[in-house]
């Protein structure tokens, strides 16, 4: 009688400790702190398109307004949620041909809608630093000429020598996705094709 009450007296503090630790262990098993991704000014946006007489490639060569994306890395292999966006100036597009540059800005209604906003929604999984070249997928919304459209984007990523993550997203979009008519000149004899290949390069500094 006295020995059993003695042993329960010894077990009680361990049980108490277990009750205190269990909930915190359970909480930590499913969640980690969000990871901050700082978008550096090396980020770029490139748009490749064509007309029936030539091809054009226009680029926003740098991102002068560094922003932060927040990654909620709940598990290592599953999809992750991202919040945050990047806003690029349409006026900064450069097609290496002044006339084409002005025409693209006019087509994208730069005076009325001066920004292209790419909002990041998720990634199929967190980029694995040990796999230096991998392909992942993710959802974004692109706001252009006042129209917001959701797209699934293919990403390639590499880890830079300085530890920065380089995420390259590519997607084929159409002018018509954003209610924009592809430009046509001389009664339609010179026509711009509806398809545009968009490539954005995110140069990311990771903060835990």
């Amino acid at each position, binding site marked *: 009688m006295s020995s059993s009450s003695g042993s329960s007296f010894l077990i009680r503090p361990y049980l108490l400790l277990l009750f205190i630790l269990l909930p915190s262990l359970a909480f930590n098993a499913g969640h980690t702190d969000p990871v901050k991704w700082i978008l550096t000014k090396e980020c770029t946006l490139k748009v490749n398109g064509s*007309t*029936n*007489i*030539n091809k*054009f490639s226009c680029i926003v060569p740098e991102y002068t307004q560094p922003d932060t994306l927040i990654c909620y890395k709940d598990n290592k292999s599953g999809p992750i949620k991202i919040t945050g966006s990047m806003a690029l100036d349409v006026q900064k597009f450069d097609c290496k*041909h002044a*006339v*084409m540059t*002005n*025409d693209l*800005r*006019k*087509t994208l209604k730069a005076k009325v809608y001066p920004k292209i906003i790419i909002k990041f929604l998720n990634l199929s999984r967190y980029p694995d630093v040990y796999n230096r070249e991998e392909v992942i997928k993710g959802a974004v919304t692109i706001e252009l000429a006042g129209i917001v459209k959701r797209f699934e984007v293919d990403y390639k990523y590499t880890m830079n020598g300085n530890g920065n993550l380089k995420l390259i997203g590519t997607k084929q979009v159409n002018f018509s996705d954003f209610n924009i*008519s592809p*430009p*046509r*000149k*001389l*009664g*339609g*004899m*010179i026509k*711009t094709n509806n398809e545009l290949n968009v490539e954005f390069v995110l140069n990311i500094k990771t903060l835990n």
Partner: protein
Amino acid sequence: MKRIILSGLIAGVMLFILCYGGLYLGIRLFPALFMDYNNPLFNSDGNRDVFFYMHAFIISFALSWFWDRFKELFHGHFILRGLEFGFVYAMVSLLPVMWITFSSLDITFFMVLSWFLYGFFQAVVAGTLFAKLNP
């Protein structure tokens, strides 16, 4: 009046085929020459396409009236009359218009020169037809 309209209409059809056909072929054969038309100066939403394609008839009726008024001034073989008519039109109308266009718009000299030659060609074709249809 009837002759002006009839010869204007025939010249319009001829210019439509020659000029737009030539432009269509030119764009396909020499695309580099047309790169500068990707310019915000030029209408790009297609809402004026009908006016663009009416140009052949606008110029043919205008030239038909002009021919009828001044045809006595052009002498010789019908081809020579057509050439002289085209030259007069180019000097009186095209040259001053192209001059002011080049001086005021951000377009290349080659583009203005091509418009000048295009207009001269149109007037020569129209003049040659008028010399036959309305001598």
